């Protein structure tokens, strides 16, 4: 088979960014959860919160490290694979990425050292502050990167000079029309992902009777977060969708596989969208539902793909990714409410619930990836909507080079993902107290002469 270097470059970018997003999706939320554990311990003096912190800070450290190293790849990739993007849109992308590094990366990386290893070297207040700064840093980093991503989706505040993007207004660039929706949608997604990780691992620990009350406290924290946030996410997602309809109608048309502009468009639950015949095969539809969801009017108009001939994204993958995201989101609401109902006021749960929570541990990953595929593939063929096409910015590498490095990345990532999940499994079987001294180094190596 002969591979197109352009397709390979896109697959490589997708592989790198898909792998990377898994870890911030957990650490952005887990940072705040850890701060909550620390504060509860400071307030109540209950040892269970201390155990909760001790156990989860280890998983946080591991997750954070995975996120950092996979993120470095991203910062180089713009140059190695998409030099045209920086040449044409560097005036926007550069400063936003720069602010992310300056305001967030150093902050989180520096105070992480104190948060992880400095507890006996600084005051409790300083340690709490460090934990706060780490959580704040991860969130601030999400702010900048989502601002840039949103600008690529809905660019404002710029003008073109010889094909190069020049900035008119930084406020309009940073707070572009889709940014608030995408930022909150993603933040809540991170919170939900970490809530399900926390609840799922705790359910697994509860099934093995590890750490008693601490495990149940953590599980409840995760479950309550999920029970509140999962429905909020549906609402925010709905608003995000309406915003997309206004600014990127071609993406919506692909998400819903609407081929012809119509009023009172149905919501298609299942179909095999066929780009050749421009029809949906085996469609199962709910009449008027798409118009109702998107325009809040059963007879509202939804633009069809026919209006974006040649400049609309591939339909089937966007359509299906969207449905996967919706399905996982729905499942999250059900499981979270079921768990919240069972766990109210007590520390017991039925086995089916504990198994269900365990199975849902990484459900957030599926939803996050599916959601990003919708929004990123849904932006195609543009890299900056309406301004710059992906195919015009790609670097000129041979298929062999790209295929070779892609193969290397996939092997490395598969190995790391297995190791990451394996390590969480390994740690989960152990009580927090037994892990307290195994951060790095053993107690018997403490300063031999001192």
């Amino acid at each position, binding site marked *: 088979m002969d591979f197109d270097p352009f397709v390979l470059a896109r697959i490589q970018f997708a592989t790198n960014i898909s792998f990377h997003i898994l870890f911030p999706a957990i650490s952005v939320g887990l940072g705040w959860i850890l701060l909550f554990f620390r504060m509860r311990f400071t307030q109540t003096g209950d040892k269970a919160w201390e155990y909760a912190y001790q156990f989860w800070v280890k998983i946080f450290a591991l997750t954070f490290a995975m996120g950092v190293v996979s993120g470095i790849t991203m910062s180089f990739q713009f140059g190695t694979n998409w030099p045209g993007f920086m*040449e044409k849109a*560097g005036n926007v992308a550069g400063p936003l990425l720069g602010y992310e590094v300056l305001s967030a990366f150093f902050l989180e990386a520096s105070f*992480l050292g104190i948060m992880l290893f400095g507890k006996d070297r600084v005051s409790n207040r300083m340690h709490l502050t460090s934990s706060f700064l780490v959580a704040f840093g991860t969130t601030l980093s999400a702010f900048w990167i989502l601002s840039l991503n949103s600008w690529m989706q809905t660019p404002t505040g710029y003008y073109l000079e010889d094909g190069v993007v020049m900035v008119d207004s930084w406020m309009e660039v940073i707070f572009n029309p889709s940014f608030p929706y995408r930022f909150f949608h993603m933040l809540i997604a991170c919170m939900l992902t970490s809530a399900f990780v926390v609840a799922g691992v705790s359910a697994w620990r509860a099934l093995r009777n590890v750490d008693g009350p601490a495990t149940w406290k953590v599980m409840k924290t995760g479950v309550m977060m999920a029970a509140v946030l999962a429905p909020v996410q549906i609402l925010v997602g709905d608003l995000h969708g309406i915003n997309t309809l206004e600014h990127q109608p071609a993406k919506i048309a692909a998400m819903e596989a609407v081929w012809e502009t119509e009023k009172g468009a149905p919501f298609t639950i299942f179909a095999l969208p066929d780009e050749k015949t421009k029809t949906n095969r085996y469609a199962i539809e709910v009449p008027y539902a798409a118009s109702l969801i998107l325009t809040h009017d059963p007879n509202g108009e939804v633009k069809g793909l026919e209006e974006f001939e040649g400049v609309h994204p591939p339909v089937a993958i966007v359509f299906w990714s969207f449905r996967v995201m919706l399905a996982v989101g729905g499942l999250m609401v059900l499981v979270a409410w079921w768990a919240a109902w069972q766990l109210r006021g007590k520390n017991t749960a039925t086995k089916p619930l504990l198994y269900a929570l365990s199975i849902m541990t990484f459900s957030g990953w599926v939803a996050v990836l599916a959601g990003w595929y919708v929004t990123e593939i849904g932006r195609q063929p543009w890299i900056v909507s309406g301004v710059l096409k992906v195919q015009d910015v790609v670097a000129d590498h041979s298929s062999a080079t790209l295929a070779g490095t892609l193969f290397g990345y996939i092997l490395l990532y598969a190995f790391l993902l297995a190791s990451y999940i394996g390590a969480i499994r390994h740690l989960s079987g152990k009580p927090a107290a037994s892990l307290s001294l195994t951060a*790095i180094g053993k107690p018997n190596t403490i300063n031999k002469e001192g």
Partner: protein
Amino acid sequence: MEYWLPIIYMGIMGLALLIYVILDGYDLGVGMLVPFAEEDEKDMMIASIGPFWDANETWIVLGVGVLLIAFPIAHGIILTSLYLPVTIMLMGLILRGVAFDLRVKAGDHRRGLWNKAFFAGSLIASLAQGWMLGAYITGLQDSTTSLLFSALIALTLPALYLILGCGWLLMKTDGDLRNKAINWGRKAIWPMGLGLFMVSIATPIVSASIAEKWFTFPNALYLMPIPLVCVLCFGAIVRVLYKPSVLINGYSWLIYASTVLICLMASLGLAYSIFPDIIIGDLTIWESASSVKSLQFTLVGVVITLPVILIYTFFVYRIFHGKATALSYE
């Protein structure tokens, strides 16, 4: 503004990369030394860099970030031509970074594997960085001389990192491990010295423009302090390595500090050699700079955050000051 902004950014980028070399250099150096230590010493060595490595690594992200922010065209050209070494370096850094955690979290039966990954990642990243530097200095050419020169720096930079690593261990450890660090230092210092010497000879040979800049009167006179300081620092390192009583009597910082001074001189020399080009013989910093408005907008952030970053970096180093102890989350 149009004249000065690119120069200011060139300075910031150089500073970020210099800080990267002297900080992550010792991490990578320690990483390459890990296989030569006993089991409990491995833990102590990694404990000595544990609280810092993550922030140290961020400096290369800033360095590349400034290249991207201020010189987007050069960013594209440089990283596209360095595609393979960059990819290999990234894989090395990924392995090294995750090994920190996984060697103690994946279970005892996996510890040996992750110790090896830690070593391999550090070595691969160091070699690749050396290669990238070499390719950059020769103007990203594909000629045989350019490849040989890249290979030379690919071997010299890890040796320099080893000395930084030894210098770090001398400050942060004592007892047997410190004695070992002195021995490692004695082995690494000669390849480093030879490498730096050969690089100094080879650079003006592979680049005519650099030769012209260095060997004309009176410039050559003004530039004399650079090689002179390097020779003095090198002499100081050799001297204390072979007379360790000096080190033990409160001068344990001497090797690290001397190596930092060598790095500083080398980067000043490099900056002088290439200025005002950003891609030697091809593109000047002004030709590849971003719009003034974008540079101004980011400069505000740099001016506010960079001093703050330096202050809290200093603060973190002070908290973990002194000999390393086993790291625990307690």
